[in-house]
């Protein structure tokens, strides 16, 4: 367990406390879930194992293999507890559980432990669970966030987070959702579901769909950590590389995206000197690696677009032709009105706002994105550039009615004030 140091004594308590919730603790949890066949039982066992470590390690010293020690302690605590409770349960249930408990783990290799972390990820992101529950379960079980932390990040009550998690665990048990890594033929589809969760977590942190704060740092950090973990566990999966690259490249603009007064700054007006070169470097490297692989997916293509922006010295110097070509490609493999809207913005940069407006009107004509505030914000911007103040004001107002996020609402307000001058 790499996260343990040999420092004995008073530090141990603090170290163990931190470990309980960080990666090392999550690794032990992932294995205990498999051995004990149940999330709640495993969490309890993890808790008991750490408690035992707090008592024994200061006296007896750190064991040679702390992870194996914790897993073994957790398993025995769970067996003890089952024995104590057994007179209340039916015999059948106990036998079934004991069978799972007898599973030997001592002679399993490291590879099997690593697979436990994948099993945990694929179970938390199982497509049969509602997206909200997938996100809550992932943050709780894999990232080790508390219910309160998740609630704060999503601006909902801890009770509703707890309910989502309880219901998800109940469904895993009742519908018998297995604790396993999908078969190779199922992997692309199942991985898609995992990547979606990671990207939703990232966007919730980066864009923050509602509430007072535009960037909620923690969730983007958690998403990047999840992306790195996935790539470590499934190296060479092109779409994991693509997603991690996309998140890094978007995150590189974090400091340039918000002014000192907390106001939103659009891409074209951002001070590019504030972009994080390290993240751009890492993101670009990943994109290039993903592009050498045979299949190019939606995250990779979006990352290539983000990399194009990242490498341009200014909005004017951006290779819009290339970006439009990439959007065309993206639309061919993944038709989506949101991508069409993004393409319209790129077209407007190349051919002028009138061309962008025509594409937006076509989208609206097809009944698409009528409740999407970004569409009206883009429409307003094109009218504004054309000097059509009246139409611009109407569209900004429409966007304002739909926007949920405070910083974006203020941005629209600012534009409206400027126009009314």
């Amino acid at each position, binding site marked *: 367990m790499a996260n343990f140091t040999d420092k004995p004594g008073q530090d141990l308590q603090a170290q163990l406390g931190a470990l309980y919730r960080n990666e090392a603790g999550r690794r032990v949890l992932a294995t205990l879930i498999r051995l004990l066949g149940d999330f709640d039982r495993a969490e309890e066992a993890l808790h008991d194992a750490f408690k035992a470590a707090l008592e024994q390690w200061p006296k007896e010293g750190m064991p040679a293999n702390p992870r194996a020690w914790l897993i073994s302690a957790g398993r025995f605590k769970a067996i003890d507890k089952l024995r104590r409770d057994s007179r209340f349960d039916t015999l059948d249930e106990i036998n079934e559980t004991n069978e799972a408990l007898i599973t030997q783990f001592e002679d399993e290799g490291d590879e099997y432990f690593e697979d436990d972390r994948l099993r945990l990820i694929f179970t938390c992101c199982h497509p049969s669970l509602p997206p909200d529950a997938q996100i809550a379960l992932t943050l709780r079980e894999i990232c080790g966030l508390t219910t309160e932390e998740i609630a704060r990040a999503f601006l909902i009550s801890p009770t509703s987070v707890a309910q989502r998690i309880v219901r998800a665990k109940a469904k895993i048990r*009742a519908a*018998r*959702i*297995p604790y396993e890594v999908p078969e190779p033929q199922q992997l692309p589809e199942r991985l898609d579901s995992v990547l979606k969760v990671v990207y939703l977590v990232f966007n919730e942190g980066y864009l923050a769909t509602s509430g007072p704060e535009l960037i909620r740092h923690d969730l983007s950090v958690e998403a990047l950590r999840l992306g790195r973990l996935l790539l470590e566990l499934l190296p060479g999966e092109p779409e994991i590389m693509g997603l991690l690259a996309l998140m890094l490249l978007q995150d590189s603009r974090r400091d340039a995206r918000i002014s000192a007064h907390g106001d939103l700054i659009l891409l074209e007006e951002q001070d590019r000197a504030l972009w994080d070169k390290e993240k751009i470097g890492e993101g670009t490297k990943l994109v290039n690696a993903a592009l050498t692989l045979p299949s190019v997916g939606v995250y990779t293509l979006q990352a290539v677009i983000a990399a194009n922006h990242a490498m341009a010295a200014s909005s004017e110097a951006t290779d819009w032709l290339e970006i439009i070509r990439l959007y065309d490609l993206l639309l061919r493999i993944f038709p989506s009105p949101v991508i069409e809207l993004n393409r319209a913005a790129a077209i407007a940069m190349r051919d002028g706002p009138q061309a962008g407006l025509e594409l937006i009107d076509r989208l609206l004509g097809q009944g698409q994105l009528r409740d999407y505030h970004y569409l009206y914000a883009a429409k307003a911007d094109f009218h504004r550039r054309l000097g059509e103040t009246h139409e611009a004001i109407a569209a900004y107002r429409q966007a304002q009615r739909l926007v949920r996020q405070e910083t974006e609402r203020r941005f629209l307000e600012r534009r409206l004030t400027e126009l009314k001058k």
Partner: protein
Amino acid sequence: MKYICLICAEKVMEQMAKADADAHYEEYRKFTDDIRRSGHYVVCNRLLPAAEAITVRVRQGNIATTDGPFAETKEQFGGYYVIDVRDFNEAIQIAARIPGAAHGCVEVRPIAEDEQTLDVLGLR
């Protein structure tokens, strides 16, 4: 563990062109043979169209009936399979092979196997 796969589609056999229905029946013959051979099959049936249905409720001891199915949706139940499989993932994989999944959709639901249910239904 047993799961029921409820097949829903906008069109049932009766509403398809004869040639299409015949081809669809053949797909079902092949699928049903397959899961019989693999040992996953428990039972299955095809339902007559929703137009032949009546919905029954008892309120204050009185029987109230309404014409048609209880849900006013475009898709209707056309049939079902009960399968016996290892877990949810295997159930999903088999449900995906049901010919109707390619036209409509298949709802996969675990069948209750708790003591009380088994006792009440005389299934033990």
